[in-house]
């Protein structure tokens, strides 16, 4: 689904953000991208949806070499990838419906069809009742759920998230992580950049570790045995949340 082959990225001034990174993510994977600030996590994610281009190496998304896609065709690549950011990037002057309906509108859907789709997607993230609200009327967690709804509205095969809980308090963060697990459970490949180890322990999955642009770790952590079924995820994550909170308090 996503494959990096010896990918390096140098920015102007010679700063190397990524060095010879290679890995492959399969369809339906739930993967974490870990590393300290400046390790290259955001750069790697931006390369996937081609906000930036690699200095060398190849990136394959659904078998297509992202670098070789003509500039005019990049929007079509991005329509297949949902992206979520730490700062939500919601437009304050637009309603929640308008915020998540950009892509359906771009695709030429009529207003009724867009409303139906927006309602269904917002229901998926538990915010169907806030369709006509404005972002500033929502809590941080709700805003992030809207951002996730925007990423999901076209049912992308890949969902990538760059520190999606970075601006949220622990309670809301776990709420968002639960949502990602649910989304992944329905077949969407999820790649999530975070520096929070507790999520990795709780959810499990592929863990790619970056250090100063190099891929220094690539391992699979099994989800805890108690978390085998989707139905039990909520409760188990809640207990992990409690554990983490108490751990944080003790430290």
């Amino acid at each position, binding site marked *: 689904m996503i494959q990096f082959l010896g990918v390096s990225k140098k920015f102007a001034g010679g700063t190397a953000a990524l060095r010879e990174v290679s890995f492959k993510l399969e369809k339906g994977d739930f993967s974490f991208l870990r590393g300290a600030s400046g390790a290259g996590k955001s750069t790697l994610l931006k390369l996937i949806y081609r*906000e930036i281009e690699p200095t060398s190496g190849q990136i394959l998304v659904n078998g297509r070499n992202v670098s070789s896609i003509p500039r*005019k065709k990049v929007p079509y690549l991005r329509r297949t990838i949902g992206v979520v950011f730490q700062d939500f990037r919601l437009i304050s002057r*637009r309603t929640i419906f308008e915020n998540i309906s*950009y*892509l359906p509108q771009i695709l*030429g859907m009529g207003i009724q069809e867009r409303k139906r789709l927006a309602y269904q997607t917002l229901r998926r993230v538990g915010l169907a009742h806030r369709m006509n609200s404005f972002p500033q009327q929502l809590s941080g967690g709700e805003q992030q759920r809207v951002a996730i709804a925007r990423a999901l509205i076209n049912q992308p095969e890949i969902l990538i998230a760059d520190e999606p809980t970075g601006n949220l308090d622990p309670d809301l963060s776990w709420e968002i992580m639960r949502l990602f697990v649910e989304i992944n459970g329905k077949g969407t490949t999820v790649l999530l950049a975070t520096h929070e180890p507790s999520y990795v322990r709780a959810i499990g999955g592929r863990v790619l570790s970056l250090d100063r642009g190099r891929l220094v770790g690539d391992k699979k952590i099994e989800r805890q045995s108690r978390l085998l079924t989707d139905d039990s995820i909520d409760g188990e994550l809640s207990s992990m949340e409690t554990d983490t909170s108490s751990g944080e308090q003790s430290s």
Partner: protein
Amino acid sequence: MSLFRIFGYFMGEAVVSLWRSWKVSLLAILTIAMSIFIGGTFLLLSGNLSRVVENWRQEAKIIVYLHSQSTPTEIERVRSLAAEADWVTAVEEVSGSQASSRFRETFPSVQDLLKSWEDEPLPASLELSFLPVPEGQGGFDTWLASLRQDPAVIMVDDDRDWLHQLDAFIAILRGLGAVVGAALLGAAVVTIASVIRLTAYLYRDEIAVMRLVGATELYIRGPFFFEGLIQGFLGGAVALLGLFSVFLGLNPKSSTVLLGTVLVDRFLPWQAILAMLGVATLAGCLGAILSLRRESLASD
């Protein structure tokens, strides 16, 4: 996405954007309106003046003034010389006394001037009506020179001389209008470009999101092009409304101002109105293109 729907989206977004930043949009519209108004004023004046000159050209005559001592034979010779030209349609002989009475009728307030003169103060003349002669047509100048050189002729007054001067004045007026209008239009284009760049800057967060979810550049830039088009069109419409108001104020039907009787007899023809609207709209579009080809919409 159907063309109708996408144009509807562009138009809707452009109108919302104009409404949201109405102050700077108004500035852009007024700038373009000013340039079109000034250009249109020159066009209106020169057009009416041209029409007046053309009317005068139709009535233009060549007047051949004759010596008072000229004999009938000499007068007949001059008449024959005048009438032999193909372009002369009529030759009217005006005696000195007829000329005096015309003078008294035309200038009654100064008719006393003639009393202090001799019996026949104004010379007899031949008034030649003629068809419009293309400039530089062979024979006309030679024919005119031969009339001037005839010993029975004092002088030849050719109306075309001052009509030529008026033509030159009109050409200068049009040139001036074109230069001033173009300079102001350039300023208007720059203003529109700046306004659209500013709008794009204000919308940069939304543009970034649109890029992220897969909007094409046409989809992102379309509303800005339409915004430029609308600003240009509105600027042109405002200018034409202003010009029409001035025309109504000075028009001889509603005003007794002398200027109105000559220079604003008729409003601009519909072709000129459409052309002005088109130029204004294109200027708006050009402003949008200028602003959008730079990095104002570059991804962040």
